[in-house]
């Protein structure tokens, strides 16, 4: 059953460039970027049991580093991307040490406080970040000489990167380390007694999640060719968290579905409603109150019920 779904989804991802117009191809790119970001957050939330409200930090910082290096200091995209990922991952390593001094709500509060400070810095340090104006006029990379300016070309690029990201994150989660991560999530004391080092396992996961968040950040800034402090905001982190929870944090693909839905909602809603934040808040309330396990588990339970299984 899972294989059929995987093939269907995989197949549908190959379709847009052939059948859809530019608008939908661009939308598909955005969905993939949001999906990668949500999957990286889910390493923490779903598999690690660490709910973070500051994940946008990694997306935003990676985006800003790339933007600044390419537009202001004349770096080429390859070097900028490398420095961006390394720098952001180093930041994740540092933040992880701080945030992991606490757990549960304390952890949440620290990640929120740290990301809010970065957001504030992005606004105030306008001589560096251009503050509220953001950084415009950015370019997309041209890997191996291929231009990514057209929506179709960019889509293929994002598809390839997303597929690699998805495979690597899946590998991580199903590996022996992944099993130890899930164990620490469920029974940390027991795992320690068995010889696992809970802190180190969590910290490594935190850094890895930050790394893929940075990758999402690069794709994000390449797509928009523009970066603004709002990408570092709590709203940005909250949208990703909503995607994770709405899609189902316990599953591999759920967060991707959830992120897609949040993005689609945002796109269509903003055509009719000005107050996206309020809608986001209401959706939060709705999902948490009505479907706390998320859509994907709910759907698979539905399918199991239709097939007559009792579970």
């Amino acid at each position, binding site marked *: 059953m899972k294989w059929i779904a995987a093939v269907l989804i995989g197949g549908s991802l190959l379709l847009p460039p052939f059948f859809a117009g530019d608008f939908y191809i661009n939308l598909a790119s955005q969905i993939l970027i949001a999906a990668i970001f949500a999957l990286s957050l889910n390493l923490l939330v779903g598999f690690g049991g660490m709910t973070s409200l500051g994940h946008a930090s990694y997306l935003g910082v990676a985006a800003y580093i790339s933007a600044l290096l390419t537009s202001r200091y004349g770096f080429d995209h390859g070097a900028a991307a490398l420095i961006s990922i390394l720098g952001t991952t180093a930041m994740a390593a540092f933040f992880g040490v701080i945030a992991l001094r606490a757990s549960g709500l*304390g952890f949440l509060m620290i990640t*929120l406080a740290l990301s809010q*400070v970065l957001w504030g810095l992005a606004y105030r340090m306008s001589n560096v970040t251009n503050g509220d104006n953001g950084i415009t006029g950015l370019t997309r990379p041209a890997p191996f000489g291929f231009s990514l300016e057209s929506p179709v070309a960019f889509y293929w690029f994002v598809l390839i990167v997303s597929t690699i990201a998805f495979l690597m994150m899946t590998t991580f989660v199903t590996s022996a380390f992944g099993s130890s991560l899930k164990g620490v999530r469920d029974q940390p004391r027991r795992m320690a007694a068995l010889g696992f080092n809970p802190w180190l396992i969590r910290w490594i996961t935190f850094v890895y999640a930050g790394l893929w968040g940075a990758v999402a950040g690069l794709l994000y800034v390449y797509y928009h060719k523009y970066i603004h402090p709002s990408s570092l905001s709590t709203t940005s982190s909250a949208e990703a968290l909503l995607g994770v929870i709405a899609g189902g944090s316990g599953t591999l693909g759920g967060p991707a579905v959830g992120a897609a839905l949040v993005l689609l909602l945002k796109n269509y809603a903003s055509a009719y409603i000005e107050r996206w934040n309020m809608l986001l808040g*209401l959706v*939060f309330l709705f999902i*948490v*109150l009505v479907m706390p396990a998320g859509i994907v588990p709910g759907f698979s339970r539905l399918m199991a019920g239709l097939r007559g299984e009792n579970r």
Partner: protein
Amino acid sequence: MQFWIIQGLNSLSLGGLLFLLSSGFSLIFGLMRLANLTHGAFFMLGTYLAATALRSFDGLNIWTTAIGAGFVVAALGGLFERLVLTRLKANPLGQVLVTLGMSFIISDACLMIWGGDSIPVPTPQNLQTPTRLFGFVFPTYRLVLVGLAVLVAVSLYFLIECTRLGAMIRAGVDDRQMARAVGIPVSRLFTIVFCLGTGIAGAAGVLGGPILSAYPGLDADMLPLALIVVILGGIGSLLGAFVGSFVIGFIYTFGTALFPELAYIILFLPMIVVIAFRPQGLFGRVGA
């Protein structure tokens, strides 16, 4: 010398404001183990209400407005707690997420109602003349804020240590199950404490108005401050919130006076240092 005195007084008034902001948050977190992310929005709502009320009705003074706004916000908070939070007793993560959602709703509602421009809140007439202190001129209202913070701190202390309600709160904080077992109506207590905490936030919003003004994004500016104070001072400790507020007030004021570029970093540096060496905060209990 002048520098030290002026910055010292600034620090005190900032600390006072921070305490007014974070005491409610600390109270709620201490008893209900709930990180109320709506706190900044409730504060901002108070500020907006003050801005409108004080500019529309001549006879109103800021003190009654603060109490009035406090009640309005407390009522809103109570409704939210009863209708939404109680349904999520078994889902602490869900509780945090709905408070986040609620903060988006309130902040967007404020944007809808009051628009995007900053609205100043008038300083009370009789406090508009500056005070001469140590030979320097200092805005009176800022000094009054310190007094207010102390007043609120003492009142809360009295409430928690010397009243029956306070005893119930303390019992609930120490051991929720046991408190329920000896007949303390924990559920009702939670509602009362949530109303109290959010009410203080609303009132604090009014009192902070003359200094901050009401503007979109005030909630996002205030919430991390409350978080930093509570993380530094220790979760669930009112004394920690009090001390933490003034510690942050001093470090931030002097820090930004000396190194204005690094303002935001200076803000969270004390929090990081405290977390590194004492993760439960200055006055928090281990495992709280």
